[in-house]
């Protein structure tokens, strides 16, 4: 039960400050709490497409309210918090320092602010304060403000760690983490600006916001963390550092410009739609730069991948990144939009992106790195169960949504009655619930695994808190 780098995790974790281990694990624990809550909300919503009367008596659990509870729990709860948990380990490692007293305090403060934001935001959503269902900014401004404050605290923390680094260069993982914190702050401010709340100005900002909230936060975090995890687990350098830099800057320029592809064929100016379309296709460059870099690093490492329980997640996540980005570029084309936009196809794409790309990469990093912090490994069988349930369930969900959405779109183009296009979806919606149940089971397995990786007694045996970690490398 070793990770392929060759050092047992309890040795790797020796000398870790137990307060630091607890901080990371608190972020993880919060993340998995929101993962389970978001999964429950998603399952209810999915089942409602099969039986629309389900829980129909409660205004709190209205379809239109539970949907943002599901999406925002996943985005701001699960995915963000697990990324931050891992970044809190990766950034000090790259800077070759350990977090000091002030930084640990800041990390805990950010955790509180962040959780308060998500709790308050979720309560406001259930009570019907939906910010007019502006997608991914449904939280009221005060809840988003709490999260933004947490982001600023984290940015300050990461910046401070990088500034007092013990090496000359700043490793590319830190680039992505620092930039993501700076970018998402701009995104949140733009999303809640009091001007541009009327007419199509709001829609232009909406298109920008909803794509940048994903692409300037989750993508750089997931990619940046993988730039640390992958070389670490394989015990070899990344294939090409220059490709990573190319990926970073092309991602910055191209991704920022593509938000309007959610509103093709609308009254938004044509030039904006064309810019979005061109750069959506150009996204192939940063995607291939990063994912190609990862794949070439993994080239020839089949044995290591088979022996590891974390690398399969990384490999799946990287392949998912390629596929889902190719799908996204394709979807932005006007000819494709004609038939597939506004259907369930888009929902399938969104799930593919947040699951097979972001979540799988983060799970890979989580299983690869957390045992090095806490000194405890999860049971391998449980992780395997997690992998296969998540892979199978996710595949069923994405396939049913994409195939069903394509059929739904075809029914619209052919001019069948709208109700026919609803009936066509029914079997796919049943399959979606099946996939969702498997994913829910996977998330329960993940939660148990996270519990098994909790910081514990091993730390006290192999290292006394506060001492300098006595090892080279990293």
């Amino acid at each position, binding site marked *: 039960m070793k990770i392929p780098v060759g050092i047992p995790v309890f040795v790797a974790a020796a000398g870790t400050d137990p307060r630091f281990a607890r901080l990371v694990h608190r972020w993880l*624990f*919060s993340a998995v709490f929101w993962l389970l809550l978001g999964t429950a909300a998603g399952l209810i919503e999915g089942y*409602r*497409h099969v039986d*629309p*009367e389900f829980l*129909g*008596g409660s*205004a*709190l659990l*209205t*379809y*239109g309210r539970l*949907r*943002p509870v599901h999406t925002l729990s996943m985005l701001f709860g699960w995915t963000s918090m697990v990324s931050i948990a891992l970044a809190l380990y990766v950034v000090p490692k790259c800077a070759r320092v350990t977090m000091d007293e002030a930084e640990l305090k800041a990390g805990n403060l950010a955790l509180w602010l962040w959780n308060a934001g998500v*709790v308050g935001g*979720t*309560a406001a959503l259930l*009570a019907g*304060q939906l910010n*007019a*269902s502006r997608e991914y900014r449904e939280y009221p401004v005060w809840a988003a403000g709490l999260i933004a404050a947490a982001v600023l605290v984290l940015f300050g923390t990461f*910046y401070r760690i990088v500034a007092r680094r013990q090496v*000359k*260069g*700043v490793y590319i993982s830190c*680039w992505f983490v*620092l*930039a993501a914190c*700076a*970018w998402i702050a701009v995104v949140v401010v*733009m999303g809640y600006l009091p*001007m541009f709340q*009327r*007419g*199509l*100005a709001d*829609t*232009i900002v909406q298109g920008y916001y909803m794509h940048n909230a994903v692409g*300037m936060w989750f993508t750089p975090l997931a990619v940046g963390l993988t730039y640390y995890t992958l070389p670490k687990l394989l015990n070899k350098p990344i294939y090409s550092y220059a490709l990573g830099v190319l990926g*970073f800057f092309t991602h*910055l320029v191209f991704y*920022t410009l593509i*938000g*309007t592809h*959610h509103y093709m*064929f*609308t*009254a*938004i*100016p044509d030039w904006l739609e064309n810019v979005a379309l061109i750069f959506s296709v150009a996204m192939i460059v940063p995607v291939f730069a990063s994912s190609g870099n990862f794949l070439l690093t993994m080239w020839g490492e089949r044995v290591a991948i088979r022996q590891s329980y974390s690398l399969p997640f990384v490999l799946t996540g990287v392949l998912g990144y390629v596929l889902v980005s190719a799908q996204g570029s394709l979807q932005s084309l006007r000819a494709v939009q004609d038939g597939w936009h*506004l*259907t*369930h196809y*888009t929902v399938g794409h969104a799930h593919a992106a947040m699951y097979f790309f972001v979540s799988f990469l983060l799970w890979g990093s989580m299983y690869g790195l957390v045992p090095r912090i806490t000194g405890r490994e999860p049971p391998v069988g449980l992780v395997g169960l997690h992998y296969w349930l998540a892979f199978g369930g996710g595949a069923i969900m994405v396939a049913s949504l994409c195939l069903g959405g394509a059929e739904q779109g075809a029914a*619209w*183009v052919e001019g069948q009655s709208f*109700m026919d296009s*609803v*009936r066509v979806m029914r079997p796919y919606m049943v399959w979606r619930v099946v996939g969702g149940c498997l994913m829910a089971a996977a998330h329960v397995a993940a939660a148990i695994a996270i519990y098994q990786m909790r910081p514990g007694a091993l730390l006290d045996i192999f290292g006394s808190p506060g001492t300098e970690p006595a090892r080279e490398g990293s």
Partner: protein
Amino acid sequence: MAFDIHSNHRALVLLPLCIYVVLVWLVAVAPAADMDKAYPVDARRTPTDLVRRGEEVFKAYGCVVCHTQQIRGDERLREQRGDRLVVPVRAPDARFGLDEPTRAEEYAQSRPPLIGTQRTGPDLTGVGDRLPSVLWHYWHLYDPRSVSPGSVMPPYRYLFRVTTEADGPGLAAHDGPFPTGKAWLLVGGVALAFAVLGWLMFGFTPALGLSLCLGVGAAWFLIRECQLCQPPPDQGEVVEDGIEALGLPEGARLVATPDAKALAEYLLSLKRPVRGP
């Protein structure tokens, strides 16, 4: 230190941030400001208070999650029809019976336009022309499948009250979902979940207190909001016609709450505006 982003962390943070802000200005701030200027607020087209309230109900239940308000068209395919240039409607949107895509000025008075990104249910542009009966909307909101077989829309029964003849309008035979025992259970569960979470994460410290406060605060918030939905007894509108298919108990009457009235009014107001000069 030289301006080398590989070793100068200040440059490393500032360069991507500056590039990002410039690009955001180009694709979000500038076009949004242009849009604001091009289509100013028009006081003559202010909706009535009831319609505005209905719009708030529409927003509060997240209806836009499933219903778009956009008829799409490709401006590059403009063609001369009679004396004016017309943009043809895209094939998937043609079913809604409108001969022209939605124009920017039609959204100019909305805060924000409920344009939507998914069409699980039909588009609502011009629904006031297609379905002009307020009764139909009441039946449809109370029991969507009674008038629209095969629909997957959830019922919005909490916008109505069911009364028996003897009660008179407004006195509920069975109230809405709140506040019942189940609701208190839910709220207690939420508070307990936060408390347990806080205890697991932070130990039995003031953290537990804060978690409890959050849970109780959330509970208070939910209950207060739900009591707001309960209308004063004399403001309902009795729905008399066509309620046989709704599966009400014998002799019961359906009373539309003010929210239901407003929502129906808002839907009826979604008419295609006459083309401006």
